[in-house]
């Protein structure tokens, strides 16, 4: 059945070789944990990617019942936790997933650093990776405000206040990020737009670049 569907599509589109190129190719033995268990360090990036997919799915469904508005952000979050079927689990997955991503992405970066993977010819991919790290941290920072509870509010107050210490343009930067003189309605809708529209677009673009460059340069080692 499945084979017949694939053959039907292949007769018209010939996608099988593309799929083989993208996903179904052997990895070197020294990076395969089923050959050598210690090779699990090569999986940190892939695990991060899986977690990102989970964040996309849980986030899309959470957005069904969330509104970025200062009177209802908290209420709708509470509604998800109290009244939506498995809502608390969904919210927790998104919450814990974000923490796990930051842990995995840090481990991934440490492996790259310690194995010297950033050296020529992979400097560009290192730069893309650092950009991805910044994007992911911004995801975490903007997402933290969205429940609009006290912790979220004051954490964002502190976080955004850091930029006031930038010489000359500090105040202007603060107002651009907060959307005004104080953390309020404009901050929330700004952070929401950044969290669900701008950052996912950036993340997908840079992930695409990241993976393309891995395919071009290949995997390092064995050492």
């Amino acid at each position: 059945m499945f084979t017949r569907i694939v053959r039907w599509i292949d007769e018209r589109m010939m996608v099988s070789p593309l799929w083989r190129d993208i996903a179904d190719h052997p990895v070197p033995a020294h990076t395969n944990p089923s050959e050598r268990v210690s090779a699990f360090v090569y999986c940190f990036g892939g695990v991060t990617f899986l977690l990102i997919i989970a964040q996309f799915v849980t986030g899309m469904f959470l957005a069904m019942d969330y509104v970025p508005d200062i009177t209802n952000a908290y209420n709708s979050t509470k509604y998800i936790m109290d009244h939506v079927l498995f809502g608390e689990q969904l919210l927790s997955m998104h919450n814990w997933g974000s923490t796990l991503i930051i842990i995995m992405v840090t481990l991934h970066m440490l492996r790259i650093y310690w194995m010297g993977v950033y050296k020529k010819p992979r400097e560009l991919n290192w730069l893309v990776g650092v950009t991805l790290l910044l994007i992911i941290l911004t995801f975490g920072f903007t997402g933290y405000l969205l429940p609009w509870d006290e912790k979220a509010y004051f954490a964002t107050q502190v976080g955004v206040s850091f930029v006031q210490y930038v010489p000359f343009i500090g105040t202007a930067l603060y107002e651009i990020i907060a959307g005004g003189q104080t953390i309020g309605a404009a901050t929330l809708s700004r952070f929401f737009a950044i969290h669900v529209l701008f950052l996912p677009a950036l993340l997908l673009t840079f992930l695409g670049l990241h993976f393309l460059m891995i395919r071009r340069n290949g995997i390092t080692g064995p050492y």
Partner: protein
Amino acid sequence: MAGKQPQKAGWTRRDFFNWVLNVTMGVIALLVAVPAVGEAITPAFAKTKPLWVRLGLASKLQAASLSAGQGGVGSVVKASYTYTALDHWVQQPASDYAYLRYIGGSCPFYILSPICTHLGCHVDWVPSSSQFHCPCHGSIYSIDGLNVSGPAPLPLGVFRWKLVNGEIRIAREDTFTGAYQRQGEAPKQPCLMVKQA
């Protein structure tokens, strides 16, 4: 997956690892999918409790109904009320009205929802003909709320009500009319007074 050596027949080490990987990924996908689908299908399973709202003092509404009617028989009066509507997570003040009539007996008030069962317009009470007329598509209901003419498929909704300290409270329900919905053109007036425990 192309190996260096030709594949051995049967259950190989590679098959085993592939199986473990697929099962693990499947479990993870399920763990994400179950709450995600739950979020999407929640509305189909949501049960709302009736919201009891204050309609007004029974003595005043009784007097109003009697003075609208003749010879000790009550007629229909419009009873406006305000309440706090809870729309999922949004709480906000709302207002509406009901058509109340004093009918005496053990269930002295007969309270109708003004929502037309055709497409949801508010019907008007026409005292000269003792009928409810819908301004949208001309549905006509009798004084008991039975659909006698026009496109309305069902009689008007009837509010369940109860007396609390001399005050009438009506139950706004999760139906199209916001009240108890009679399914046929049953001629009898359902008494929907809820006795206090």
